[in-house]
């Protein structure tokens, strides 16, 4: 029985390691900045998730207690990872792209990163109730 749990813990760790490695390899291999951003954000999900699962299983099977801190780590990771990715994407849009090179913003005029104070004034001028 104990060896089964050992096997499971090891399997989760190896899986996590593989996904972590693929994430890092993706950083080198992919060839444009936005694509490169995909690799590390993905490693955080299954890579870290696998380690946390292994840790919980290990505590439950071999420690004498249940450990649930890992669930909180997952929660905080899911809250923060998209924000860092979004910030890096915004920097890329600021420095490498202009309004002309971006895809169309549908019914709106442009994307929020390229918004300027003049645009906001113009928008507010159309609305008499807008705060100054």
């Amino acid at each position: 029985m104990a060896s089964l749990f050992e096997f499971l813990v090891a399997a989760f760790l190896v899986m996590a390691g593989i996904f972590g490695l693929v994430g890092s390899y993706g950083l080198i291999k992919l060839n444009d900045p936005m694509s490169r951003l995909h690799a590390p954000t993905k490693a955080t999900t299954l890579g870290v998730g696998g380690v946390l699962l292994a840790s919980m299983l290990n505590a439950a099977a071999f420690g004498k207690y249940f450990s649930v801190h890992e669930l909180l780590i997952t929660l905080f990771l899911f809250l923060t990872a998209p924000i860092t990715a979004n910030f890096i994407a915004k920097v890329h849009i600021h420095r490498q792209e202009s309004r002309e090179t971006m895809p169309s913003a549908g019914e709106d005029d442009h994307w929020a990163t390229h918004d300027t104070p003049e645009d906001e004034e113009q928008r507010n001028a159309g609305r008499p109730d807008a705060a100054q």
Partner: protein
Amino acid sequence: MKLLRRLVPHPFLTLLLTGTWLLLVNGWSLNSLVFGFMLGLLIPFVTQPYWPDRPRISRPFKAVEYVFVVLADIIQANIVVARIVLFKPNSQRQPNWITVPLDLKTPEAITALAGTITMTPGTLSADVSDEGHCLLVHCLDAPDPEAVRDEIKQRYERRLMEIFE
């Protein structure tokens, strides 16, 4: 009833904070449950003025379903992305920008959708349009941008609509 509403402005936030406290303590005892519940009452009450116009969550159990759908998608799509990174040459990959028109109106719901898109591998939310009607999504490999856009709308946005509106 009105007094209760004022004292407990966010019932779900109270439950969530109590649960988070129990997880932080990493063990079960009546002491920590009571203390967590006190924090759960105090924090929403004190922070209430800083969060006006919060959205009403009409169907909280839908949120549980949503979490499991997203978790399943993350696992499945991680494997897809690993395949692309390892085996697909850069010249055959078709990275693409996608504009997703939004039906969601509340900022909280749009944030949840953007976070979900980033966490599910292969797509990354990069920006919103200046008046908040569209979401800019980057795809690692999307030969068919329309299909990805429809999937985001069908799978995630429809469910978020049910939860938030």
